[in-house]
């Protein structure tokens, strides 16, 4: 171990200020200390607290707010008996699947592929419109789609040209509405990831496939897709993690309603913790969210195959 450490320290970067090797450790700690402190207090302590509070009956009101006690797995037992929790898991999966995995992913890839090798001006004109949705803050996205989907809003006005009766889309199709709003907001990210990925696909390979008689579609499926599959996987994980945490858009567009029709896990967590003041139960829900996030992050790290 000592030999190993010595061997490592004889690298090019050994010549540190002052030149004394063992001072390195202390100096490094001084540099890292502020970030360690901040991360420990505000990031890792809350994560540990999640694991602790999820097993308590912590609440903001009532008798248990005075005497918080350990309740074992009671929160999780009630969770699996709670029909609203089950609904919110399903809503989360539907939202993830259609707005991120299918919507943003497919639309982003489609845009990148179609824009590839088009005229520069045309590319940037379309690109700007898509990116505008991404730059717009989430809360403003909610207002914009509130106006778009409202009874008598833009969509109804447009459809009235075809003699379609006005529909209050946010009440009639709340999940479809939030999914479309989230696709509008998020697609630019996937588009940019795929534009970068397509730029790395060597033209020679595509050209030789064309000479061998492969059509546009065949070239895409047989050559391009296998070459960008790394980006597809990475992008999939990143947008899944982003979409898993979406709160602002749904909360301000539908508030999780009508009823429970758009109550995803973050919304249900918020309702339990801050509207019903059941912080213990709310924390148990956030632990579930956190676990899904942790698993997805591990998968993501494995896929990146990072070398540090």
């Amino acid at each position, binding site marked *: 171990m000592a030999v190993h450490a010595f061997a490592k320290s004889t690298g*090019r970067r050994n*010549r*540190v*200020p002052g*030149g004394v090797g063992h001072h*390195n450790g202390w*100096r*490094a700690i001084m*540099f*890292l200390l*502020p*970030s*360690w402190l*901040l*991360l420990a*207090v*505000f990031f890792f*302590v*809350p*994560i540990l*607290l*999640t694991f602790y*509070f999820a097993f308590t009956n*912590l609440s903001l009101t009532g008798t248990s707010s005075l005497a918080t006690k350990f309740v074992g797995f009671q929160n999780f037992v009630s969770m699996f008996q709670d029909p609203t929790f089950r609904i919110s898991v399903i809503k989360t999966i539907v939202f993830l699947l259609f707005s991120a995995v299918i919507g943003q992913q497919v639309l982003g890839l489609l*845009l990148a592929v*179609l824009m590839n090798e*088009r005229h520069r001006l045309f590319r940037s004109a*379309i690109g700007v*419109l898509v990116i505008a*949705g991404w*730059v*717009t*803050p989430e*809360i*403003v996205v909610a*207002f*914009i*789609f*509130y*106006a778009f989907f409202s009874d*008598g809003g*833009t969509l109804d*006005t*447009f459809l009235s040209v075809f003699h379609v009766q006005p529909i209050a889309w946010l009440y009639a199709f709340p999940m479809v509405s939030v999914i479309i709003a989230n696709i509008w907001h998020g697609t630019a990210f996937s588009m940019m990831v795929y*534009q*970068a990925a397509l730029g790395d696909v060597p033209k020679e390979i595509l050209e030789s496939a064309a000479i061998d008689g492969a059509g546009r579609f065949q070239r895409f499926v047989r050559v391009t897709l296998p070459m960008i599959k790394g980006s597809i996987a990475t992008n999939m*994980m990143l947008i899944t993690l982003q979409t*898993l945490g979406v709160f*602002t858009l749904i909360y*301000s567009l539908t508030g999780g309603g009508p009823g429970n029709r758009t109550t995803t896990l973050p919304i249900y967590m918020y309702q339990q*913790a801050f509207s019903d003041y059941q*912080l213990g139960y*709310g924390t148990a829900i*956030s632990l579930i*969210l956190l676990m899904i*996030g942790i698993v997805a*992050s*591990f998968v993501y790290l494995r896929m990146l195959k*990072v070398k*540090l």
Partner: protein
Amino acid sequence: MKKWNRAKADAVTVHVVLVLIGIAFVVPLLWMIFAAFDGDATLALQVPQHWTLGNFWAILSDPANQRAFVNGVIISLGQSILVVIVAGFAAYPLSRYHLKYKRPFMYTILFSTSLPITAVMVPVYELFVFLHITDSIFWTTLFLAASGLPYAIWIMKNFMDSVPIELEEAAWTDGASAFSSLRKIVAPLMLPGISTVGIFTFAGSWGNFFVPFILIQTPSKLPASVTIFQFFGQYGSVEYGKLAAFSILYTIPAVVLYVLGQRYMSTGFQFGGATKG
């Protein structure tokens, strides 16, 4: 001849599809732009009969809204400065020294970048209540800074790796400390990295609704992201023009930062480059 026709038809189809997608993207946005300049805006997209700046004036002249924008700038700027300095310090030994625990530390950092912050907000609130630091701009900014650190450290370290160490060695020979070589030699050379981190942190913070919504209660301490939400709750179903004007005023900083940050953007979207250790 036949082949040429097909290629042309293909190109036309591609352009038509792209234009349709473009229209689908711009229509919802147009409502905000037109309604903001419309004296009697409705929820439907329409070109204003009477163009006016009245909506903007109404929003800007309200002291509560001015306060909200100032609060937003304080929080976002405070967070960005903290993140840049603290992440810059942290990145230095990670880039320059051989440390025993560098690998697990960098893995933890990368791992933390992808965790959804939503998942920890309930325990963070509990922590703030326990420490009696809720309803404070200062502590909220500090929490936001911590939540932005993992991504910032990761980016900063990668930018710092590209600054040749030889430049610093010359300074060390002249007796400069690690701190002063970081400040005088490394920092100026990695200005693009610092700008990237600063701009993205500011933009993320400016658009963040959930964190101040949970951690701050007093209306006069709230940033624009929450104030605009409350405006929507109170007047959103009547004052459409003002809501749209408020939205535009609130969106402008995000757009400006995006344009500023755009030239460094490509680095963020090439995973290959970003993961080189």
